[in-house]
């Protein structure tokens, strides 16, 4: 007798793990976004024809590009932070500062990219 140990996605996301937990979740979302992007790209090329063209339209759209740039850039920068901390464990004591640096790099980079994407889309 007893309750099952299963932890649902919703319950897990409600755990208050603060900044590192947020980066962990965003890293997974980023990875998933990259898979969707690459998958759409490959499928569109593979299928071809009208359906393939429809796929091209989706992943070439500026909204999709804004999302995929978030996924790829965050995934890369966060991966770099984790790699650096993994290779130099003494730095792990400064993990909170490392996350602030990560966001200090990511946010301006992303905002500039979003500006360029929207500017290009609207300007033709």
């Amino acid at each position, binding site marked *: 007798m007893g309750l099952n140990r299963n932890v649902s996605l919703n319950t897990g996301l409600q755990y208050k*793990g603060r900044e590192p937990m947020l980066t962990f979740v965003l890293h997974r979302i980023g990875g998933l976004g990259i898979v969707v992007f690459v998958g759409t790209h490959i499928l569109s090329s593979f299928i071809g024809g009208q359906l393939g063209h429809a796929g091209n339209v989706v992943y070439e759209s500026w909204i999709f590009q804004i999302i995929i740039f978030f996924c790829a850039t965050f995934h890369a920068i966060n991966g770099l932070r984790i790699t650096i901390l993994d290779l130099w464990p003494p730095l792990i004591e400064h993990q909170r500062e490392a996350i602030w640096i990560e966001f200090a790099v990511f946010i301006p980079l992303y905002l500039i990219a979003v500006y360029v994407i929207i500017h290009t889309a609207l300007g033709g």
Partner: protein
Amino acid sequence: MQVTLKIFRFNPEVDKKWHYETYTLDAPETDRILDLLEKVKGHVDGTLSFRRSCAHGVCGSDALRINGRNQLACKTLVRDTGAKITVEPLLGLKVIKDLIVDMKPFFDNYKTVLPYFINDSPLPADGKERLQTIEQRARFDETTKCVLCAACTTSCPSFWGSETYLGPAAFVTAHRFIFDSRDEAASERLHILSETNGVARCHTVYNCTMACPREIQITKAIGEIKLAMITGKLD
């Protein structure tokens, strides 16, 4: 101050599904969450079940999810949580009753890393102690503080995914012996930790470090184990 205490309740003999019950109590802000649970059990509802023993942050019995994150009920004050408090059992372990979870998978994982001193060499000439320098002792001092409360392991998303993942507490114990200059089973332990359910599944989420009531730098200890695996050096 008036405190609203929302507690996870599940009685396997009566309930088909878990639910929350809310209690309103008067408590000074210096009261611990454990004091509130004792008040509910002693004066409101004697059927409330939870673990507690020393009540001073040493035995690690009363690790619970308090306001969404793992903490010891005996070390968390009302002034730290505010007037609205939610108390739930640890995640990733089967709930036996109310706030009591089945700790067997946790201790099974703990046993896997050989949590005891191994040295088959003959004793020193005087037959007394295996000496080590202050620096050698300091190398693993941090990880000797673990009280096996399971707050770290049950805050880890990898453990939520699979109870066979050894988890931070087992890694902390492994670290304590791997970096002990007197112990001779470091390579055996590193081999165990290099298996599928070992340190490779640590995704450096830091939940364990932030949940540890003894403030052990758990992720750093895991990082040192990972590095020892790669380099083969224990310095």
